């Protein structure tokens, strides 16, 4: 039985069909929420909210988007609502003026080939986690969907209901921000190695 047939049965109230959809996607939804919220209890709450919404709204799912996109949109929105409620202070990521300044004022140091750059470096891992935590919801969601979940620009755009151009802009800013944080950390190490 293909997914379209399973969805049709689930819409008619077939519990076995619904359970197949839940079993197929629950782990992915849990991990998506965990990536966005970075908290297991909240990820479970999002998982439950997502499938409750599926139960309530499945009759209105018209198949214009794929079931996966529709489900991911529900889960992403639920995760982002929670993130926004926390009202954390996020790093502001400005566009061109600051970026131009950073290009003009710094000499790029290549730390990418440094053998000590790895996740075994606990300090670096902490820096990376902190940097991702500082990404505001609009950047974090795009970065997670595109670069961590490996979805396409088109899928990311459909899930977040924003234009593909907007996905690219947000992704660019998120990637640059994270690179700059790691560069500040690694450049200092690389330079001090040569100064000694």
């Amino acid at each position, binding site marked *: 039985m293909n997914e379209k047939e399973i969805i049709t049965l689930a819409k008619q109230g077939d519990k076995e069909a619904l*359970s197949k959809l839940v079993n197929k996607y629950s782990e992915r939804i849990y*991990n998506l929420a965990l990536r966005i919220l970075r908290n297991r209890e909240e990820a479970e709450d999002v998982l439950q909210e997502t499938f409750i919404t599926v139960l309530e709204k499945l009759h209105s799912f018209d198949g214009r988007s794929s079931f996966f996109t529709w489900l991911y949109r529900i889960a992403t929105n639920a995760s982002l609502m929670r993130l926004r409620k926390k009202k954390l202070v996020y790093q502001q990521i400005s566009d061109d003026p600051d970026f131009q300044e950073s290009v003009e004022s710094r000499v790029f140091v290549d730390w*990418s080939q440094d053998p000590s750059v790895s996740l075994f470096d606990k300090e670096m891992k902490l820096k990376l986690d902190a940097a991702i935590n500082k990404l505001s919801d609009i950047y974090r969601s795009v970065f997670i969907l595109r670069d961590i979940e490996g979805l396409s620009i088109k899928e990311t755009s459909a899930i977040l209901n924003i234009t593909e151009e907007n996905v690219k802009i947000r992704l660019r800013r998120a990637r640059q921000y*994270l690179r700059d944080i790691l560069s500040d950390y690694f450049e200092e190490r690389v330079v001090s190695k040569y100064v000694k």
Partner: protein
Amino acid sequence: MLNDHKKRIKEICDLMGEDFNAPSCREVLEHINQCPTCKVYYDTLKKTVLLCQENDCPEELPDEVNRRLMNLLNLRDFLNAPEK
């Protein structure tokens, strides 16, 4: 020159993760290979994304979480391990 770097770096960011064999990417790729500044930027950007991906450890859905979900949805009769 700086404006050129800025333009190229934006292009590098946009194209990363896309198909570099596409004709539209060829010009950017040629530039990266000839420009030390952009090459360093590209390599460090790529490494950053790679580190983020390696740092990401997907978790198995805990049995308890799965059980609570299936109970909530009134699907406890179909409690199975989630599909991978």
